[in-house]
């Protein structure tokens, strides 16, 4: 959801904003993936991802030309949160090299997917004045809000006090 929303948002921007944003996203994603080997499990990662997807979805609906600093900040947040939430399960007998290979696979696929989505959104924005992208943004906002509500509801039910 975050990848889709960020791809749509970046596709609404100019190439001069897209390129550094993608580069910083890949860098932060890679760093966060490596950090999962050394940091304890990231608690409530899904909650943060949902809040980010909701914010990105709203920005896509508004179709704002955001400034470079905000685009870079959002890209770094997305890269770090996705990376920290993509920990490889520690299975007995799984060597470090295999873990790093899995992390590399995650980095490649998440980077490739965001690049494709950005390119897709960039061209889709030329169609019907970017209407399709805004409609998808509205559905991302709706989906994130509903899952966020479900998540918070489950948390409250699990800890009634």
């Amino acid at each position, binding site marked *: 959801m975050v990848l889709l929303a960020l791809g749509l948002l970046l596709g609404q921007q100019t190439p001069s904003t897209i390129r550094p944003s993608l580069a910083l996203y890949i860098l932060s994603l890679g760093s966060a993936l490596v950090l999962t080997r050394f940091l304890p499990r990231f608690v409530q990662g899904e909650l943060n991802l949902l809040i980010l997807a909701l914010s990105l979805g709203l920005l896509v609906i508004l179709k704002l030309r955001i400034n470079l600093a905000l685009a870079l900040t959002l890209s770094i947040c997305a890269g770090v949160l996705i990376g920290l939430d993509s920990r490889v399960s520690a299975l007995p007998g799984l060597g470090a090299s295999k873990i790093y290979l899995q992390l590399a696979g995650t980095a490649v696929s998440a980077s*490739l997917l965001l690049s494709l989505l950005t390119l897709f959104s960039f061209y889709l924005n030329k169609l019907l004045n970017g209407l399709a992208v805004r409609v998808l943004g509205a559905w991302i906002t709706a989906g994130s*809000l509903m899952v966020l509500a479900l998540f918070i*509801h489950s948390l409250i039910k699990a800890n009634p006090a």
Partner: protein
Amino acid sequence: MPYRYTKLGWMVALFILLPSAAWAHTGAGAIGGFMSGFTHPLYGWDHVAAMVAVGILGAFLGRPAIWILPIVFPVVMAFGGVLGILGLPLPGIEPGIAISSIVLGSLIVLAVRPPLWIAAVLVAGFAIFHGYAHGAELPNAANPLAYSAGFVISTGLLHLFGIAIGELIRWPWGKAVARTAGGVIALTGVGFLTGVL
């Protein structure tokens, strides 16, 4: 080859690198949740009719309704979804969904052009019923996030399909096609309301 076609070629080539045949576990977890969410709106004809109707109505009313209505619907629908998740009682969900198809389909078939705010309030009101139904189903999904992502993409595409039908009104024959689609949607709603469908 022109530059823009080269880029398109790269895009297609990169998509080929994601072959579904290589997925090891297609029936469970995130993939299963995504596919379940993606196909869910396509099998529920009452929802399909309303989503397509919102798209056609938006295109029928022209700008800015063409983008306001398909955005108002999901955003308000999410609030209905929250009501469903919280389990707050809301009477007449199924009749409300059926009536949404009848009203929206009738507006299209009769070529009624209400002011934008009335159209937006109507669409928002019906969105609550659709959202409530989806929200009530969401907790049962194996992977709610993946289910929601699939659901989002699928329903967004249905709206776009409706907009594409509505865009046909630029041609005289297209107007007939769009109004016929509106008629089919209204009849579908009648079928659901009376229990025939």
